[in-house]
């Protein structure tokens, strides 16, 4: 549950209060980054995070995202191959 949006951290605005500026498609808002800050805050700039009620709750793992997409694409291609094979088979059998 709970609406979460990917946003990119573009600046640290108040290190004392752990506040940073997040950018979601060009819309900016200050968010708290306490949950995703491990090292120096500046290192967060450029990273994407999942934003929920004004907090960056989790850093987005870009590799994992790529992997998931890759898996989906593979599945799609496999399906296409299967479909083509089915079509080919149908053609061979003289069906439309």
């Amino acid at each position, binding site marked *: 549950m709970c609406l979460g949006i990917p946003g990119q951290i573009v600046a640290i605005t108040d290190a004392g209060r752990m506040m940073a500026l997040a950018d*979601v*498609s060009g*819309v900016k808002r*200050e968010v708290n980054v306490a949950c995703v800050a491990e090292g120096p805050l500046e290192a967060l700039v450029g990273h994407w995070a999942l934003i929920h*009620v004004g907090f960056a709750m989790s850093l987005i793992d870009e590799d994992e995202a790529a992997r998931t997409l890759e898996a989906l694409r593979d599945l799609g291609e496999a399906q296409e191959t299967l479909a083509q094979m089915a079509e080919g088979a149908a053609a061979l059998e003289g069906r439309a």
Partner: protein
Amino acid sequence: MALRDERVTLAHGGGGKAMRDLIEEVFTAVFQPPGMEDQARLTEAALAEPGARLAFTTDSYVVTPIEFPGGDIGKIAVCGTVNDLAVGGARPLWLSAAFIIEEGTEIALLRRIVATMAREAEAAGVRIVTGDTKVVGRGACDGVFVTTAGVGVIPPGREMAAGLVQPGDVAIVNGVLGDHGATILATRGDLALSSDIESDCAALGHLMAGVMAAAPGIRAARDLTRGGLASALNEIAQAAGCGIVIDETALPLRAEVVGLCEILGLDPLYLANEGRLVTFVPEAEAAAALAAMRARPEGAGACVIGRAVADHAGQVRMRTAFGGARIVDMLVGEQLPRIC
């Protein structure tokens, strides 16, 4: 320069000299209404043509903040009423402008609003011919409210109404959706959002004139205001007794507007506009209508978004980008920012 105050006081609404000074210096000096009476006296040859009809409409404008990226309350007050006249097929002629002003309002702000209104009226080809000011105590209104009424003329033989839309008609909008609503949401301090979005506020009288000339068979048009595209389409579907199908992939939306909606859990189909309309034209005239829109800056982003259909009468459906379909209902209350 009898008016030396920086802010409006209750004295400026009391019916005496202070009021007269405020009205003369801030309002009538700029609007230059005809005559000195508390009514405009007007003539227009087109009104006397046999079969011509008079169009009459009104709206109150209460936007917060009063000034925002892309406009101010004065711009909306002129454009909104011009648009209500124009989408009904009328040529906008004259506006009235009534101001309710909170005690303490800066007179410089009033001057800016009035200047905007004069400029927009001039550009839209209408005249602000009569008006009123009231001053209310601090806390009795929110800065400045403006109510405009508009009079226009519908030429003989022109008949446009939501009820005339027929299955097969093509739905066209004149540009990206929701910019105004998104701007207001972002500009209000309480959500602490910032963006570069600007209000789409624009007068659409000239654009409508172009469309009506290019597509004489035009059935209906609606300006998209509160309730956004979704509400306008639902009204049309219900009035026409047909269904409407729109295509999610065809909807012109700015990335920032989509982003803002994702953050707040809103649906851009319901966001307000102040310079957008949807029009239904017979399929044969769709290309011409589209071209006429695109010929004007306020229609540069025009595109076809869907069409009227014989199915599901009174209902608006959207083919989603994902390949599904869903009902686009009227908004129930107002859209509330949500987190879940």
